[in-house]
């Protein structure tokens, strides 16, 4: 099992904009480099990418959650 950690402090978003579907749904497989969410820091947006491939992603952070740098965003098998 691996964890994806937040690289930055800010607000976490699961989709590119409110009217778009989430980048990944719970249970999806993930390839290294896939975008799994966005972190908004002081009004600028930064993509969060998976560093390693995995299956069955399970999000710990909810959409629009405040998040600290180093906090877990999701678990991967």
């Amino acid at each position, binding site marked *: 099992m691996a964890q994806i950690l937040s690289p*930055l*402090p*800010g*607000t976490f978003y699961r989709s590119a904009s409110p009217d778009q579907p989430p980048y990944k749904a719970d249970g999806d497989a993930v390839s290294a480099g896939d975008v799994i969410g966005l972190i*908004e*820091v*002081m*009004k*600028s947006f930064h993509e969060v990418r998976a560093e390693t491939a995995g299956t069955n992603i399970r999000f710990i952070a909810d959409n*629009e959650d*405040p998040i600290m740098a180093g906090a877990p965003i999701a678990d991967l098998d």
Partner: protein
Amino acid sequence: MLKKLLVANRGEIAVRIIRAAQDLGIATVAVYSAADAESLHVQLADEAVNIGPPAAKKSYLNVEAILKAARDTGCDSVHPGYGFLAENAAFSDAVTGAALVFVGPSGDAIRMMGDKVSARSAAAAAGVPVVPGSAGRVEGLEAGHEVLTATGFPVMIKAAAGGGGRGIRIANSLAEFEQAFPQAEAEALAAFGDGGLYMEKVIGKARHIEVQVLADGSDAIHCYERECSLQRRRQKVWEEAPSRALSDRLREELCASAVALAKAVKYSGAGTVEYLYDDEADRFYFIEMNTRIQVEHPVTEAITGIDLVAEMLRIAGGEKLRIRQSDVSVKGHAIEVRLNAEDPAKEFAPFPGQVAELRIPGGPGVRFDSMLYQGYQVPPFYDSLLAKLIVHAETREAAIVRLIRALNELKIGGLKTTKPLFLALAADPAMRAGDVHTRWLEGWLIENAAALAG
């Protein structure tokens, strides 16, 4: 006079408003999100109310929570500051509807100036020069062709409901125009729910010059102009008053036009009428009116000696304008720089964190508006403005020397800030000569990237 004011904002502007209210003997209530419990505005206000979680949508943009806080604490008035709900007409209406005083103009005035087409029409009707273009909305491609005779190329196609640089297309030829117009229409409809478009000539090299006005609903005065030509991604970074580019004759003409507009729309409170100034043609054109106090208001306060926020509070409390136009005069030159929590060496990446060390500049002609204190944790959820350093001196040259002195005194440890940018700009010959326009800084940043990285 107002008795108890709720400050519906955070950061340096909340601190600024609390100070003005306390100077007038008005009690203050701060509101804060869960991320701002330790912030300076909460410490300085007489009372403070938690209005929700960190996300602005759930706290500083939460109209219900703000109105409830005002009711629960017995406030008689609300100051919106800038950003957040400051130019939200529905918020102004809701505050008034709750039998509270909104420190700013009516919802109708905010709506009129917020719609770019109606603002442009109001300005033209008041005799204010507008950028050559359509009189109102352009109804279809055929009507667009007629407007082209006034604008020529390049021409801007803008969304009536747009703003902040969104919903703008530029066409350089008839072929491009015929392609871009329907696209802009569809885009505006999708983005703003309103496909209305208007057209304006593209003004090449221009300065951004804006006039501060104060009005009480019937009378209006101006407090001269500010120049804010130094912008990065349409955000101002360095502002001055007065503008060195204007002749005395044109300055009077410009400021009189802003007063005419404020009077024509029966404006109340503090407002800013923004213009583009074309050096070569020696002409100015109305762009928009901002119906709030602006970030850069202190440079006007420095050269005129007027406390703009205090005047806003007096007007909102029902007083008539106390200052006559003949009492307003310009003394010296002022410069403001915006110290943001951004790393200029890394393309201005945001840099939230803890203020490990703080040394605030002082001495003659120096003002530092900020919410910082040693140990303060800068939250990542809001904009990156940490402080405004304002210097005032007899001349522009002396103000730049004083700016360098004050920047060298300033130390904000533990964070990356835009201070190195301002030291580099203050040493630049074109900057020293004031030879700039609204797109100058972006070119300068590319040419000086190596120096900023070092």
